[in-house]
């Protein structure tokens, strides 16, 4: 359930950023979630609601989430592929990547040349794209 930990991080960041902007109430937050995080969006949304509703300034904020597809590019042969095209990962490997996304480098290899030296072009981490309020 590390969705709760990340939701807690989002609430803390929204409160801090809204303070910096002088907002008394946050009406909307837009989040970009990397597919590599493999977040259960329902749990994440529930956690955001539960944690947010006791924080006055964000209690009624609308949350918009967009999951960004994870795309990799091999630094050796230049091949690009996405997480869904990555062949045969076990449940344990998927769970490990869910909890610590960068260990993708332990389990994923370039489908073309088998190199572990690839970059995550898109779809890692979690970002607050914008906050709206008054």
């Amino acid at each position, binding site marked *: *359930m*590390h969705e*709760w*930990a*990340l939701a*807690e*991080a*989002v609430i*803390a*960041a*929204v409160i*801090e*950023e*809204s303070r910096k*902007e002088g907002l008394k109430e946050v009406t909307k937050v837009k989040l*970009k979630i990397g597919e590599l995080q493999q977040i259960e969006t329902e749990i994440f949304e529930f956690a955001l609601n539960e944690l947010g509703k006791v924080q006055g300034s964000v209690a009624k904020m609308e949350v918009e989430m967009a999951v960004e597809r994870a795309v990799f590019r091999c630094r050796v042969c230049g091949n690009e592929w996405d997480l869904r095209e990555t062949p045969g990962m076990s449940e344990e490997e998927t769970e*490990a*990547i869910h*909890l*610590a*996304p*960068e*260990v993708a*480098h*332990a*389990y994923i290899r370039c489908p073309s040349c088998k190199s*572990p*030296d690839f*970059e*995550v072009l898109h779809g*890692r*981490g*979690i*970002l*607050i*794209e*914008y*906050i709206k309020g008054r």
Partner: protein
Amino acid sequence: MLETVDPRINIIDKRLAGVKRIIAVSGGKGGIGKSLTAAVLALTLSGLGHRVGLLDLDLSAPSTHVILGIEGLYPEEEKGLVPPEVHGIEFMSIVYFSGDNPTPLRGIDISNAMLELLAVTRWGSLDFLIVDTPPGIGDATLDVIRWLKRAEFLVITTSSKVALETVKKVIKMLTELNVPVIGVIENMRRWDSKPVREELKGVPVLGEIGFDDKIEDSIGDVNRLLKTDFAVKIKEIALNISLDEKALLR
């Protein structure tokens, strides 16, 4: 608000709010005993009655689990990751997730992995969090300085000119950045070598530890490890560190 924000950064201080002191074990070169020092220091402080956590941030080459003989454990998922307690220490390492697989990470991956671990690990109430860092002044050390703002550095070196050359740069950088340095430990000392304290003027040398032949056979066995000459010296240093909070070089 226009700029995107990585919310994981905002939660780090809260995750570490229950930790009284953060000690980053650092050094210029590999193979000089940083991980061994971090692991034995954590064990020793725990043995002295402190509540201790150990965080292995050598993400591509974690080894403290080997030194402490830790296997078959996994963090508990409870609104984040709760580090398992082993030998009285709360222990967190990427090895729980990467296992035996080589995990080649470049700079941005190291930063992201570290950020994720710092954001989701739920440490208990600790007197000390010992952080094992990779050698030099690369990504991990810079991220420790950036994100673990309360970290005090304990710098390991040998008397080798090669190690000293780099460790001087590490200390210079930490001093320039106003990062507290607890002091230096000279490890693997050969008694005919020129003492490090003569080379590192102005920096407290907390101890000189001779080359200990018994260490290798004690790796993975905590009870044997704590009986080595190395551990005896670390205990003297640990007592000083735990008592002397204000004698930091700034």
